[in-house]
């Protein structure tokens, strides 16, 4: 690798990403607006198509709908003329409304040149990022950028939104911005002063603006984890602003706190906010609320470190991410699509996106793996969600084969016993060739407060076959566990005395001492609880299995073994050990 040069390169590139974001952001907003308006135009045209009593209109609308983008302006103008000139229509309700909508939306169709230019610019940037991302070690950027580069125009905006989010995760902004900054939108200067004063006293920096317009400018400059807004603003209804804040990629992760008078509380029913504080305001309550929100909103963007070989997130990084990200009921799904062509992976991705909310989507793409993390999904919703996925595969894209494997992991759940859930899942997920439901992700770390630095889990292998060692190293390190290997039976005991691993995998046939002798000797000193041992025996030699178990092995695997099975058994042993000693 590049060593210390590598760090400075990464640093350089992450700063460059920040500059990229500044370029992409206005393009994204323009494209998004264009797509939104185009969608509205399409809807109007589709509804006009249904006006069967007026063939002229139906015809004109159909023609406009089917025309290429370059002829939209012309065809919609023709449709407008038809509508205006048809005398039988004039008294009809809605005609004026439609005419008005068409008139306001027509400029969109005329913005085609800008739109095409923007589209090209975005594709060029995506192409560049696809090339440089991987070279600088950011495979995820490469992959997502390639998706943007090849996306159809109507998919591009969504893909670009994901790319922007990902860039935000990796980008480094060296301008001094306070990560704990709070934005206050309040037109009353006295209340502003009061709130700022109290937040300041609690060590929190609060930026204040007076109007929605100023707020909009402010969030494009800085990311605010918490935004406090009044419902009454001089230029915009507070509820509308909240809606827009949720849509804006710059603020969609921000927690929003609303200040409302008791009479206004009813009007907030359908608005999603993190907290509503009633006026007259108690500053202490506000400060406490903001502190609470800052704690959970901190890991807005946490890059997932990836393993070199697979491009998948490292287990440890993922665990930290999940742990910091949230609630006890989050779910992680890992779809394996070995050998899937990129085309198929893309459609699969799109299917998944259609199924879930984009904000639940810090997903990861890889050549044949697809990782999906749902921050929150209740027990009762998991199965319907997975069934829904299956139905989608069957109905929307029958040509798309279901992915071959699905791994599911979730945080510790209370209630239904894990085993029965696993059974139910396996029965209900037939299209997947294999379903692996792993241990609750966080069980191993029961009390992170008392044990701040979790000890890495160490696996020791004693086997003289270098191929077995290589395979196991790869798979075990992929699980985020530490792996050590010895190739001689004589070395095992001295190695153990230097520090006990969490699990020993022991081959029967070895130079030096054979596995049985080693096992017998080590069981004199270490109990099966302290040191679980998994024996590797050759196939068809049942006497080996019996002898091994009698000498104190906790489990055995017959060679040749399936690495996946070994891994799941290994987790089981580790779990048992953790339960007994904990």
């Amino acid at each position, binding site marked *: *690798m*590049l060593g210390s*040069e590598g760090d400075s*390169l990464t640093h*350089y*590139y992450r700063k*460059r990403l920040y500059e990229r974001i500044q370029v992409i952001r206005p393009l994204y907003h323009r494209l998004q607006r264009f797509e939104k308006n185009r969608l509205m135009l399409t809807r109007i045209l589709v509804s006009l198509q249904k006006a069967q009593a007026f063939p002229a209109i139906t015809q004109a609308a159909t023609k406009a709908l089917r025309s290429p983008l370059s002829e939209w302006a012309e065809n919609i103008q023709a449709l407008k003329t038809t509508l205006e000139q048809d005398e039988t229509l004039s008294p009809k309700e809605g005609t004026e409304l439609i005419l008005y909508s068409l008139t306001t939306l027509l400029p969109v169709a005329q913005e085609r040149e800008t739109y095409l230019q923007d589209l090209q610019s975005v594709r060029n940037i995506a*192409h*560049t990022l*696809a*090339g*440089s*991302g*991987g*070279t*600088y070690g950011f*495979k995820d950027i*490469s992959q997502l950028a*390639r998706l943007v580069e090849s996306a159809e125009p109507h998919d591009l905006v969504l893909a670009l939104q994901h790319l922007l989010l990902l860039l935000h995760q990796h980008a480094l902004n060296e301008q001094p911005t306070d990560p704990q900054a709070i934005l206050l939108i309040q037109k009353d200067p006295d209340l502003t002063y009061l709130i700022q004063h109290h937040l300041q006293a609690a060590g929190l920096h609060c930026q204040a603006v007076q109007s929605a317009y100023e707020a909009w400018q402010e969030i494009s400059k800085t990311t605010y984890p918490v935004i406090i807004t009044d419902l009454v603003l001089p230029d915009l209804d507070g509820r509308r602003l909240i809606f827009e804040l949720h849509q804006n990629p710059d603020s969609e992760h921000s927690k929003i706190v609303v200040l409302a008078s008791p009479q206004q509380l009813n009007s907030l029913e359908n608005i999603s906010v993190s907290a509503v504080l009633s006026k007259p305001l108690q500053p202490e309550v506000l400060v406490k609320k903001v502190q609470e929100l800052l704690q959970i909103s901190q890991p807005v963007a946490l890059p997932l470190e990836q393993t070199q070989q697979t491009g998948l997130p490292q287990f440890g990084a993922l665990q930290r991410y999940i742990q910091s990200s949230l609630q006890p009921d989050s779910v992680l799904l890992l779809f394996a699509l070995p050998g899937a062509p990129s085309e198929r992976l893309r459609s699969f991705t799109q299917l998944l996106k259609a199924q879930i909310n984009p904000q639940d989507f810090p997903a990861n793409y890889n050549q044949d793996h697809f990782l999906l993390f749902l921050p929150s999904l209740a027990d009762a919703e998991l199965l319907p969600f997975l069934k829904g996925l299956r139905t989608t595969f069957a109905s929307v894209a029958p040509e798309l084969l279901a992915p071959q494997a699905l791994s599911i992991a979730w945080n510790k759940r209370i209630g239904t016993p894990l085993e029965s859930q696993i059974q139910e899942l396996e029965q209900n997920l037939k299209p997947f060739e294999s379903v692996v439901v792993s241990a609750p992700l966080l069980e191993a770390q029961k009390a992170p407060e008392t044990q701040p630095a979790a000890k890495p889990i160490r696996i020791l292998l004693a086997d003289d076959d270098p191929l077995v060692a290589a395979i196991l190293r790869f798979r075990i390190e992929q699980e985020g566990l530490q792996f050590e290997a010895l190739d001689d039976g004589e070395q095992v005991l001295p190695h153990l005395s230097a520090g006990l691993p969490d699990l020993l995998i022991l081959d029967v046939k070895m130079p030096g001492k054979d596995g049985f002798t080693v096992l017998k000797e080590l069981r004199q000193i270490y109990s099966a609880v302290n040191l679980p041992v998994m024996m590797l025996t050759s196939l068809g030699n049942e006497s080996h299995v019996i002898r091994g178990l009698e000498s104190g092995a906790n489990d055995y695997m017959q060679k040749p073994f399936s690495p996946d099975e070994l891994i799941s058994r290994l987790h089981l042993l580790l779990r048992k050990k953790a339960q007994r000693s904990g």
Partner: protein
Amino acid sequence: MSPPKLERILLVEDDPDIQFIARMALQRISGYQVEVCNNGIEALEKLPLFQPQMVVMDMMMPEMDGLTTFQEMRKMPAFAHLPVVIMTAKAQAHEIENYKREGINDVIIKPFEPAELGKQLEQIWQSIAL
């Protein structure tokens, strides 16, 4: 009789980020003399001045793309046999085939591994010399 050592490389690339990392990889780590051009036109101007032993070029560039630059280069008798390596993300078997048919010596697939770039070029250099 061993071939001359590879020392002078002309890098043609429009993305400043790739320029930065490739220069770092080739100059600082592998110890080559590297001259960087932003596009094909600049490259054609710089060729006679710098006299590189090898050209490493991006495929997709504004103004003049990699292939056109390459063809222009081949028209100049002094550089008709200069080894040219292109860097591209479009590197399926048939695409590589096409490049080779055009006379391009070798292809480096993007994204490339910076620590390996020097070694890769050295290997290509050796194979051409044989």
